[in-house]
């Protein structure tokens, strides 16, 4: 029996969701420290994108990047962060094949002209395209995580008319790819997924392979401005503290936990900043989510 002083009047459901990442990570750390668990190799592959998921990863806290690097995994490769360059770096990347590793990919796969619109290095004199790298590393990895919109489904890199024929990595891999949609991916979504993989293997996923612990409920269902929607009080310009549905908010179709998690040290999020959600964490972003902002508040009537 729990004693009464444990009873909280906060909703336990929301609370536990927010703590998911941190509690998983702490368990990984404890088990590694106690030698119950071995550190696994992590390869972070950048393809045709903006490297914004690397920056978002660096923006993470509890756990932060240092913790990932020193306590959770053996990080083998990151174009943005690794010391070595040139052929030494390429060796470091391809030498991991044959061992146990988890592959995280950001950026889309450019298919145009045999992938030559995205060259990620030169190995023993030969150009390595992003397409070749993800094929070779993706088929052999223990797990593959698509980090962000571009790796998950092409994202902005594949926006019409898709000049470089970009696709998500699932389109070139015959295997399960866990997809962390979002532009960028929140550091907690990646860290929490990684921690789950390290502890228990593959997390429960939705029908498009996104972890349910982050992606199951729409923004609209947990929006702090939901009462304005229900009362029909709609913003007509940015900067108003009411519902932005009529200005193009994509909260009703976007399944992600931004309203309760928030960003950058959990201080704010787009709707909290009086601007509409643009659906960056949903498949189809950006083309299916436009216009992002509209002042035509009578649309659809």
């Amino acid at each position: 029996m729990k004693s009464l002083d444990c009873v909280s009047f906060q909703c336990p459901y929301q609370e536990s969701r927010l703590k998911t990442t941190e509690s998983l990570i702490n368990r990984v750390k404890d088990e590694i420290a106690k030698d119950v668990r071995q550190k696994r190799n992590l390869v972070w592959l950048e393809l045709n994108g903006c490297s914004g998921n690397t920056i978002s990863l660096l923006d993470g806290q509890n756990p932060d990047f240092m913790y990932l690097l020193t306590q959770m995994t053996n990080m083998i490769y990151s174009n943005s962060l690794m010391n070595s360059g040139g052929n030494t770096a390429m060796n470091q990347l391809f030498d991991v094949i044959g061992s146990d590793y988890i592959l995280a990919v950001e950026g889309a796969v450019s298919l145009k002209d045999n992938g030559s619109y995205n060259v990620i290095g030169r190995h023993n004199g030969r150009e390595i395209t992003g397409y070749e790298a993800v094929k070779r590393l993706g088929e052999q990895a223990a797990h593959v995580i698509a980090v962000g919109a571009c790796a998950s489904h092409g994202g902005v890199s594949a926006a019409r008319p898709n000049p470089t024929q970009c696709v998500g990595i699932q389109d070139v891999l015959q295997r399960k790819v866990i997809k962390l949609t979002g532009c960028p991916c929140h550091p907690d979504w990646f860290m929490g997924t990684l921690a789950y993989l390290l502890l228990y293997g593959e997390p429960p996923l939705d029908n498009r392979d996104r972890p349910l612990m982050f992606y199951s409920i729409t923004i609209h269902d947990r929006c702090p401005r939901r009462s304005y929607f229900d009362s029909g009080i709609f913003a007509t310009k940015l900067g108003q503290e009411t519902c932005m549905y009529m200005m193009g908010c994509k909260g009703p179709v976007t399944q992600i936990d931004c309203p309760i998690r928030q960003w950058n040290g959990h201080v704010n999020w787009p709707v909290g900043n009086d601007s509409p959600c643009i659906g960056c964490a949903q498949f189809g972003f950006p083309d299916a989510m436009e216009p992002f902002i509209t002042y035509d508040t009578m649309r659809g009537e």
Partner: protein
Amino acid sequence: MAEKITINPVTRISGFMEIDADIEDQSVVAAKTKGLMFRGFEKMLQGRSPFDAVYFTQRICGICSTAHSMASALALEEALNIVPSEQGRYLRDLLHACEFLQNHLRHFYQFTLPDFVKLPEDYPLFKTDHNDYRLPKDINDKMVNDYFESLRFSREAHQMLATLGGKVPHNHGIFIGGITSPVSADKIISIKSILYNIGQFIVEKMLPDVYTIGTFYPEYYQFGGGYGNLLSYGSFNNYKNLGTLYVDPLVYSNGQTSPFDPALITQEDEYAWFNENDEPDRNKAKAYSWIKAPRYNNIPYEVGPLARQWLSGEYRNGISAMDRTIARVLEAKKIVEIMQTLIDNLVPGVSMQKEYEIPVQSSGKGLVDTTRGALGHWLYIDNSEIAFYQIITPSAWNLSTQTNGMKGTGEQALIGSPVRDVTAPVEIGRIIRSFDPCVSCATHVFLSGKHVNTIQVV
């Protein structure tokens, strides 16, 4: 007989880059900087709503997304004939300043420091490919600590940005008129306290660290300079009441400083992978990079912190790889001071937003100096949609291909530099990283006219 070396990938930059260099008598005699990714943002933007450009163009670059929201908001304001309030400008510029701090902290500690400081090789990411580490163990150990400690401050620079901008990368704050949400007293004090800590770190750790590197690697003051032509579109300048807090639009060449004239910007693609119709063509015979060749008055210019520090008169020690890196750190300190001034002039609760209308036809340009230097967005609206969008990024200036017989700025900076060991050409990476290359930004161009100024801006 020259020995040819190739470095690909050049790591610890944003995006993908190769450097080819010819070495004779332990010295670089020829060099090519190659941008190796292309996405085609200008083409994607055609037909979209002009309002969406602010959020869409941020996706060009994850490390400097805020810069693109600045330039696109400025271009839209010109096209829509909107003049932002001074409060709107202060807030928008504060967001942008947070991005400067995030970038400078990360570029110095995560991208530059590993060139000079030996990080613990127990971690595979820190395995190294050269032996030119000169710091005594105690100093090296301190710098390793600072590498990790800095992560908190770059993260908190983004936390300040998100406080005013919703989230970052790819913020929801900057927009036509300033930012979306009025500032409140609790946000002001939150930013002020984070900024205080960042300022302390810069003064107590970052500045001593960069000068220590300069002391142990002094020859980097002697090379990596290049042409010495410097350009800025202006930065934190021309406020109604505050005047210019940093630098006005200026250029410097042959020892002369003169006012910047946007009509003198041109862009060529002689050696870039684009055909005569400006369509991407990876098989173009003499081309070697996705990066075009922006020029001012037909010559290549350097943009970025050293250009701004020099043009503002704040730092005039020299133009070299080490001076470039020192200027970046000095600029971080300057940005903290500018932010303090802007914060002190904020008025809480002032609304900046209106219901905007898109004209049927219009055009605009947004020129602003950002972390890596001069950034320009040019747009043309027709039928109330984006009909044309062009972007020239700082890294396109710094890492341009050659044209008209003149090497790009970064290429020229490499020429003449020593390479002591062709199997470990550490000098090349150190020089090129001093420009803080962002290839994700530099190589998305699709539709450039030969002359940017052919767009009529009323």
